[in-house]
């Protein structure tokens, strides 16, 4: 069983924080197929988030084929997120770290780097949808 943290100051909406934490737990192997997610009541009791927020997160995960509600029993993991195996993450993390060192040497501070990353991500998304 995992527990969720919901950060009220995050720009990421609470339901998406829950979705991301389930996906992250699946990627890290903390959760696996067959595992049960906490009930809505348990999440609500621990975090004070709105019950509909938790339902929305679980529906999102269900739509992506990661979890499945079983009447009277709870919500269970039925799949892993698509994507490259964990090795890919660490390889990309190393090359990104290399890039960040280069950016720092060029005089960029964290804020400039984050801003540059956001702009690049948005441009890439626009390119994909164009």
């Amino acid at each position, binding site marked *: 069983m995992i527990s969720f943290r*919901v950060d*009220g*100051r995050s*720009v990421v909406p*609470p339901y998406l924080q829950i979705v991301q934490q389930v996906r992250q737990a699946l990627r890290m192997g903390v959760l696996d197929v067959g595992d049960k997610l906490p009930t*809505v*009541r348990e999440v*609500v*009791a*621990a*975090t*004070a*988030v*709105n*019950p*509909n*927020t938790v*339902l*929305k997160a679980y*529906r999102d995960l269900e739509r992506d084929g990661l979890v499945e509600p079983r009447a009277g029993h709870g919500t269970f993991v039925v799949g892993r997120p698509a994507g490259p195996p964990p090795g890919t993450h660490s390889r990309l993390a190393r090359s990104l770290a290399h890039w960040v060192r280069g950016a720092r040497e060029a005089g960029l501070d964290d804020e400039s780097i984050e801003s540059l990353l956001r702009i690049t991500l948005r441009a890439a998304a626009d390119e994909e949808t164009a």
Partner: protein
Amino acid sequence: MMASSDPAVIQTRRLSKRYRRVTALSEATVTVPEGRISALIGPNGAGKTTLLRLLTGLARPTGGDITVLGGTPRQNAAFLSGVGFLAQEIPLYRHLSAEDHIGIGAHLNARWDGTSVRRRLESLDIPVDRQVGRLSGGQRAQLALALTLAKRPRLLLLDEPVAALDPLARRQFLAHLAEAVADGGLTVVLSSHLLADLERTCDHLILLAKSRVQLCGDIDTLLAEHQVLVGPAKDTTAIERDHTLVQAVRTARQTTLLIRRSGPVIDPAFEVADVGLEELVLGYMGQVAGAAPAQLTSIGEDQ
């Protein structure tokens, strides 16, 4: 599960309340569907307490229509058995214990679940035999909420229940509330100034200012309908024609617009950003007050 087709527990149309020469609430049209936790937000004197009193039948409207749980709010047993109301002043007897209050509740209510109160107090380590006056503020608020829920209301109205509590007690109180809603069959309206708490726990919003309803609806929908545009200081007539301008902050170089959009925003000169609840609320309050949002940050504080 939330759906736009959920039946309305509260439905008002052009609801008004005048006290002699003062208009406390003007033409308020509000819908709260079943199962929502609705945040009732507004500056002091905006009409929040008046609306709550009208919903409980403690005050009678001077204009408009009001339907609560399918009927007209009245201070009679049939109506009040479905409605729980927790006022700013928590109604507890200081010299009696929690157990005494559970006994009184059993006498006064046809439907009464005293076991749920004992179970809740036990889980919070609140002694049932101690005089209420010797409990902490947070413990008293939890007891009052548990007692209000014990009569199994279908609608719970709360007038600033957490204002005086410390952050941990507030979180526990709101978790208790959200759990009761998760169990099903309960709708909540909660007035508060504490936007961060409301953003976490509420999924519906009623925004009052100057005795009028400025916004009412599911928070996700309201947020999706609004956007902030940041761009150069230039003519914005086209944007104002295509969308509803809520608030504009203009400097010599820059224009920041909060809009309720009627479709996609296609002016490439402007950067489009999503709005958060706080930005939305302050934007509407600023519009009404005719002031920049920076001057209104005091609504986060308590009176």
